[in-house]
């Protein structure tokens, strides 16, 4: 994918592609300095003005799909439509200032050669500029604004990803100059995926697995790891404990490149949220659209799907909540889902019900492993 974007033979859709560069620590302060200098230039010009900050628009209206013609992988990317943060808009002045404050903080962090998590950045901003920052969500959104302004990845700004994901199963991971970790011997808690993308990049990986299984929920991951499912079905288990974070997606992407013959299978709940999670691993997201496209993988939907509903009792189906319907509507309106996924989503919405993977336990606690094995052997994934 990277090779395509650098090649001279760009298709039309590639020309529309707007992306964030992955920069070295000394390159980002230079970009910040350019922004400051431009701002000052306009401010001190003969016709002075407080310039707006142009940010790449992170809305669905600015999102495009790259269909996987040469590869099996399709992905969502953002194009060159801008929105702006302006000091001149009465209700949005604080948002404008927040972008500058985060840039300032990142500049300081980078020249000290440090890295922080989003949470640590929140504590610093809360104490340094209490008028402007009051919640973690605000900080996260402002960070994305800075990514959209400077067109560099969040990691380049010195902000580490969260440590959310876990790996278990038939894979050996080795950090440089460290002992190799055998993820099948890590117990039910697995190997914790670091938030430091450079570290993940430097991991050496060896495997004899035949499949990679991505699991939505932590509880299911633990269950499968405890039951050593990866010894019965030679596989690698991966989870982000819910909505996938960049570090987990990064590692999955590396695995898919290193072991291209291993199909990647997703085990999610039968509801719009589960499909949204699968979709993020598969295509990327709009929210982090400038970076997320890089880590799109050819993930296939193993379960739960419509035909699995016959395996679970009627009473384990639960009505979809308003939030689920909201997610479903935005999935339907995105152009990236293919027909077979759309059909599954349509059935969900029509019945107004969803089911969790745990419903399979109705047939016995060991049923989940049998279900998984049967589906894999029958190649029953879409």
């Amino acid at each position, binding site marked *: 994918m990277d090779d395509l974007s650098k090649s001279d033979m760009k298709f039309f859709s590639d020309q529309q592609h707007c992306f964030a560069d992955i920069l070295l620590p000394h390159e980002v302060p230079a970009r910040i300095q350019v922004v400051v200098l431009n701002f000052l230039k306009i401010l001190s010009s003969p016709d002075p003005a407080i310039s707006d900050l142009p940010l790449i628009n992170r809305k669905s209206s600015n999102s495009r799909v790259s269909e996987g013609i040469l590869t099996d992988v399709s992905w969502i990317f953002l194009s060159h439509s801008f929105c702006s943060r302006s000091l001149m808009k009465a209700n949005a002045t604080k948002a404008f200032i927040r972008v500058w404050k985060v840039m300032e903080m990142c500049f300081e962090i980078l020249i000290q050669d440090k890295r922080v998590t989003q*949470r*640590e950045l*929140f*504590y*610093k*901003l*809360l*104490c*340094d500029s*209490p008028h402007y920052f*009051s*919640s973690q969500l605000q900080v996260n959104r402002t960070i994305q604004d800075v990514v959209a302004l400077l067109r560099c990845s969040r990691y380049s700004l010195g902000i580490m990803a969260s440590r959310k994901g876990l790996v278990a199963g038939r894979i050996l991971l080795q950090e440089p100059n460290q002992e190799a970790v055998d993820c099948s011997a890590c117990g039910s808690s697995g190997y914790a995926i670091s938030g430091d993308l450079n570290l993940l990049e430097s991991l050496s990986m060896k495997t004899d697995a035949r499949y990679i299984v991505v699991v939505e929920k932590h509880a299911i991951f633990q269950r499968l790891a405890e039951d050593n499912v990866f010894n019965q079905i030679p596989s690698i288990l991966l989870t982000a404990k819910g909505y996938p974070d960049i570090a987990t997606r990064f590692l999955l992407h590396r695995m898919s490149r290193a072991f291209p013959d291993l199909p990647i299978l997703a085990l999610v709940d039968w509801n719009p949220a589960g499909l949204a999670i699968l979709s993020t691993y598969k295509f990327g997201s709009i929210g982090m659209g400038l970076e997320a496209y890089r880590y799109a993988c050819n993930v296939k939907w193993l379960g739960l799907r419509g035909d699995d509903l016959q395996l679970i009792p009627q009473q384990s189906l639960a009505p979809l909540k308003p939030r689920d319907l909201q997610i479903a509507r935005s999935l339907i309106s995105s152009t990236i889902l293919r027909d077979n996924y759309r059909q599954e989503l349509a059935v969900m919405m029509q019945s107004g019900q969803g089911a969790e993977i745990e419903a399979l336990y109705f047939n016995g606690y060991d049923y989940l492993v049998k279900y998984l094995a049967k589906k894999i052997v029958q190649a029953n994934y879409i």
Partner: protein
Amino acid sequence: MAKSMKLAGLKSVENAHDESVWTATWVPATGSRPPLLLTGSLDETVKVWRPDELDLLRTNTGHCLGVVSVAAHPSGVIAASAALDSFVRVFDVDTNATIATLESPPSEVWQMQFDPKGTTLAVAGGGSASIKLWDTATWRLVATLSIPRPEGSKPSEKSGSKKFVLSVAWSPDGRRLACGSMDGTISVFDVARAKFLRHLEGHYMPVRSLVFSPEHDSRKLYSASDDGHVHIHDVEGKAIIGAMSGHTGWVLSVDVSPDGEAIATGSSDKTVRLWDFKMRAAIQVMSNHTDQVWAVAFRPGGRGDRLASVSDDKSISLYHCS
């Protein structure tokens, strides 16, 4: 002033800690949760409680000696706890993640308070006869406000121990810091210029608790002393505005309600008293504790309708204030 305040007991938790409870503070509400109560104890733990039922949300361990002081950042996201081992632990209230650990020489960490904006943490410096100021964004020691040595004494003389600093209070506009010493004197500093301004005399025994009245440009400081009295000072002048007596033991803690109407104190005489400023007398005495009351704290924000008290008897009490 027509309104007369009254306290009514709401809830008590016996054996809230395994040992004496020495300190308490309220953590302001954040966007996602209401105010919480933090308590610190000789049992080396800090506990987080949710009112009004005083449900125990979390027990924080890690301090090596008794916890002498807890303080909450005005945003409600962060808090700090200090122990006799002179370590200050700064942590995220909801997750208990450690944000920073501040080290100081032995016996140089006592009471603490965040400034009203939350950019600085002031720590009463005990044997160092100073207030230490820590920047909250970088957690570096940015200033030390020292109490000047008495005139005529040489630097080698150990007269500093008389000025042992126990308590500290920020004025609501963040411009003044006051600290109370073992010898009863209160020192007032100009924060921006890092300059000692004056002593406030009156007490001759340790001043363990100080609080400014809550109006924004307030100059009124309440002080609680082992001499059994509560004094009201004007920090810009030298005169005492008033004194309130009634406790039969050391007054260990004083707090003022967010609307400035009521003052509450806790004492070694085991009582919590509510005072009327105009009458300079106690209008109510609560005697539910069976041992010294180390700390009293009004819930911040709005009507100030809750008061908490903690005691050597290991219990916490919550009162409704109306």
